[in-house]
């Protein structure tokens, strides 16, 4: 009986050690790969973010490093945000020249539509991109630039062009196109872009103020 227990114990110990060795080798493998790939991945992510920002705000508009001008924005109704969002301030020759805002269209057909909106110093939209959405594939997903050029029609628009009565999809008597059978999605996007322009108009003075950083020597 005693010998049996001993054998069982020895077996359990042996199995445990083997499992431990496998876990150790697996962890080492992961740690090594992570260590090797992390800098490359971070660089790729930053480059991607820059590329995305330059899609909504033309690179000719600014000469500062957009990524380091990042500020957080508390939740705001005009932006449709329920959580802290981010904005990036563009400057050229030290002068305020534009802004990139994160906004949310909360009333899409299926859940939130996340937007990135570029606005120049005059309050004119320079570009809009959908960064995440769950609209129906093949129906409402034409708001995605990868699927169609629909979202390009916002470029050049502002609070006065068109006026507030026409900041709507064509079906509601506005100026923005939409496709038959899927108007809820574009309606939400149009409303969100308009809201972001409103937000910008309210806070423009604060954005245009010179950076509060340490004065240049």
């Amino acid at each position, binding site marked *: 009986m005693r010998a049996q227990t001993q054998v069982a114990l020895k077996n359990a110990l042996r*199995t445990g050690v083997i*499992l431990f060795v*496998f876990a150790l080798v697996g962890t080492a493998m*992961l740690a090594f790969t992570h260590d*090797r*790939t992390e800098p490359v*991945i971070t660089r790729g992510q930053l480059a991607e973010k820059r590329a995305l920002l330059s899609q909504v705000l033309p690179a000719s508009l600014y000469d500062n490093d957009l990524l380091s001008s990042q500020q957080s924005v508390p939740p705001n109704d005009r932006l449709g945000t329920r959580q802290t969002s981010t904005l990036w301030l563009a400057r050229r020759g030290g002068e305020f020249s534009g802004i990139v805002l994160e906004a949310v269209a909360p009333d899409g057909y299926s859940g939130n539509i996340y937007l990135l909106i570029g606005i120049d110093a005059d309050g004119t939209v320079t570009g809009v991109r959908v960064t995440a959405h769950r609209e129906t594939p*093949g129906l409402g997903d034409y708001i995605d630039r990868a699927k169609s050029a629909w979202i390009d029609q916002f470029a050049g628009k502002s609070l006065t062009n068109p006026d507030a009565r026409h900041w709507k999809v064509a079906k509601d008597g506005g100026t923005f196109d939409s496709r038959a059978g899927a108007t809820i999605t574009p309606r939400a996007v149009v409303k969100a872009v308009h809201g972001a322009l409103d937000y910008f108009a309210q806070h423009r003075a604060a954005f245009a103020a010179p950076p509060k950083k340490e004065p240049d020597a």
Partner: protein
Amino acid sequence: MMTMNEFRSLFHNGLIKQNTGLVQLLGLCPLLAISNNVVNALSLGLATTLVMAASSGAVSGVRNFVPNEIRIPVFVLIIAALVTVIDLSMNAYVHPLYLVLGIFIPLITTNCIVLARADAFAAKNRPLQSVVDAIAMGFGLTLVLLVLGAIRELAGKGTLFSGIDLVFGEAAKGWVLHVLPNYHGFLLAILPPGAFIALGLLIAANNGYKARAARHARAGVPVAA
């Protein structure tokens, strides 16, 4: 080493006799979710094949050191570690491809077909055979995914290969086939129920074909005739 016959029977097994999608009905969750167009289906199929080949090879290589009682946790550990390594490496070195496949790669860990092949085949066979078996199984799955993707994309959107530019770059945009021009789309085919219906039809066709073959065999008539 491996004989030609062995090789052929492994492939016959993977592609037809034990086809994961049509016969074993394993790993259906990614199969149904991703097969809404040809490009997605093909990409996921090939990624799964790659992971399966790597994990089956690794499992087979260590099979003699793994006590029977803990083989499942060890295999899961190996598969998860390999998938993570592939995931990180793809993210770092082939980023454009990662953007397309990225969300699917971690899903492959949960695909039971990978563990099933590790346990049912790789744990009992030599590495070369195990890798070939995994590739054959992977191709079988890819084939079903491809057919499903083609059916759903054609019925749902009237196109084939839409989104191929995401894999091969802007230049490939012209490769998209608009098979049915001015087609208004059939949403059901693209949504998950479409996957169940199409897969059901495929399984029925496969079973029907097999039943017919068996009948002919009994009657002594060659199937091809």
